[in-house]
């Protein structure tokens, strides 16, 4: 479930040094807060947040290589699994829990999301939108599961076992009593979709979505 395996699926690979989704996540975070990054990959996001937002960061990462890289960056990263290890974190132990490009690879996305909202005051979740028009046209015109630049895996070797669309995710948020405080959509050209745009528009044109959630009081 390491993010490195899924890296091609993120709108990365653009000219800037920082990945656009990292910047979007960073924008959502108050400086000086305590953060848990679930699926922290090589620690790049945590390092960015530590250096630009002075956060106290922790990471969970499945791959040993990713953990080692994170530790070498001076981060506190443990080898672990979102599906199994979140249970060991006490309630309200972090200001933000980040699940970046990982929820679609968890076995039980709903439970994971509930843990995020329990452990953190706020949760930040980003994922590739399976409702994007290119995905829909692949299915409609070719009748095959989509394989392209941002969804590079074939159906039989993908680690992404629980794809969802923006609308699906919004429904799940309702089910787990999460408030959507903010949301960003990213189009294929890297442009943001305005928060005021209707969900159907997001669901068609966002390649990726990033949500800032909190528990309903």
């Amino acid at each position, binding site marked *: 479930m390491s993010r490195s395996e899924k890296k091609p699926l993120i709108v990365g690979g653009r000219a800037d040094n920082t990945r656009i989704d990292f910047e979007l996540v960073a924008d959502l975070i108050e400086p000086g807060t305590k953060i848990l990054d679930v699926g922290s990959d090589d620690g790049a996001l945590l390092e960015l947040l530590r250096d630009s937002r002075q956060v*106290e960061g*922790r990471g969970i990462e499945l791959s*040993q290589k990713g*953990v*080692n890289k*994170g*530790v*070498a*960056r*001076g*981060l*506190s*990263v*443990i*080898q*672990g699994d979102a599906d199994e*290890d979140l249970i*060991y*974190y*006490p309630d309200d*132990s972090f200001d933000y829990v980040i699940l970046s490009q990982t929820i679609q690879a968890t076995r039980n996305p709903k439970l994971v999301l509930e843990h995020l909202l329990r452990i953190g005051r706020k949760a930040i979740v980003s994922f590739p939108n399976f409702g994007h028009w290119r995905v829909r046209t692949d299915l409609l015109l070719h009748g095959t599961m989509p394989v392209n630049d941002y969804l590079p895996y074939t159906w039989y070797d993908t680690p992404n076992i629980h794809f969802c669309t923006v609308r699906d995710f919004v429904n799940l948020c309702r089910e787990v009593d999460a408030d959507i405080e903010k949301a960003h959509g990213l189009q294929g050209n890297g442009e943001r979709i305005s928060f005021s745009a209707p969900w159907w528009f997001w669901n068609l044109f966002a390649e990726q979505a990033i949500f800032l959630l909190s528990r309903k009081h």
Partner: protein
Amino acid sequence: MNSPTDSNKPDAGAKSREERAAEEALTPSSRSVTFGPDKPLKLDAGGELTPFTLAYETYGSLNEERSNAILVFHALTGDQYAASPSPVTGKPGWWSTMIGPGKPIDTDRYYVICSNVLGGCSGSTGPASINPATGKCYGLDLPLITVADMVRAQTMLVDYLGIDTLFSVIGGSMGGMQAMQWAAAYPERVKSAILIATASHHSSQNIAFYEVGRQAVMADLDWHGGRYHDFGVTPRKGLAVARMAAHVTYMSEQSLQSKFGRNLQNSDHKAFSFDAEFEIESYLHHQGMTFVDRFDANSYLYVTRAMDYFDLAADYDGQLAKAFMGTKTRFCVVSFTSDWHFPTTASRTIVHALNAAGASVSFVEIDSDKGHDAFLLEEPEFFDAINGFLHAADRSAGLPETQDTKKDERS
């Protein structure tokens, strides 16, 4: 001196090594400090130990701020010679791959201290030491020693060296238990802690294996109820069996299989005897025999017992997380995939407790087929992790760049 004279030993070569070991137990060639009656050590088993000695070695130099000291702990049968040759065997220090100039525990940068544990037999007070009350070896008259006792004694050594805060405490196996005890009992004195292939308590299986070993020692007629020194003998056979049984638990099934398989020792046909026919047998015999040359049998009883009694959670209402609540210490926990002596699950228990306590913790499981012993071997991923963690701890502690600059000034 009360060194054993060993009339019962098979070969002359071993004799000198065993004699050297007996001498080192009483008068170590390393540094040592003796705490007199003004500084008695309170023991968990009750009463006080006084006087007592800790034998230790240091590597690198202490900076002016006294902020670069790392305390390294040896495992069950180790000694203070972590990065320098053992005076008994002449072999390089047991962690000389890890500690030294430019190595992960860099002696150009850190001041590394390693002491022989209380209850050990390499110069610190243990059952082979002289009991001042009788003028003879303590034997079993020494009260049982716990890991917390070992650590309490070490705090006195660190005080004696004029060090208030340790940059890091690092140990594998029983050494990891000591590091954990330090971090739990003296959090304000420990900036970072590296716990390698260890556990917060001995499992029933751990206790069982060590009990087999202890029973083997005590069943040896030469043990004489622990008073073998008085009889000029040592329970070599019992101690060798103890070591053989324990050694199997330090290796993985895979490494035994790939190293020895069912290979025969001397011939390609079976002799149908009970001699060491298989290579694995002769390997174990060798491990047993070389061990008894350098290790005191009673010390083996004491130190294995200390590990059995160790249960950090029990000291905190059964909740391991409570041992670390509010700690500022940075932790790094390391386990090895093929270690079944202290398996990854034991490390995860520690990590979960540290998470629950809100501690800063890194956890790496290293892929290795070398079993428990992997922590003593040069596993690249393992070394990278230690290196990375220490560098990061270094940055966060703001350790001044004194070592190199100081050297330049001096030269």
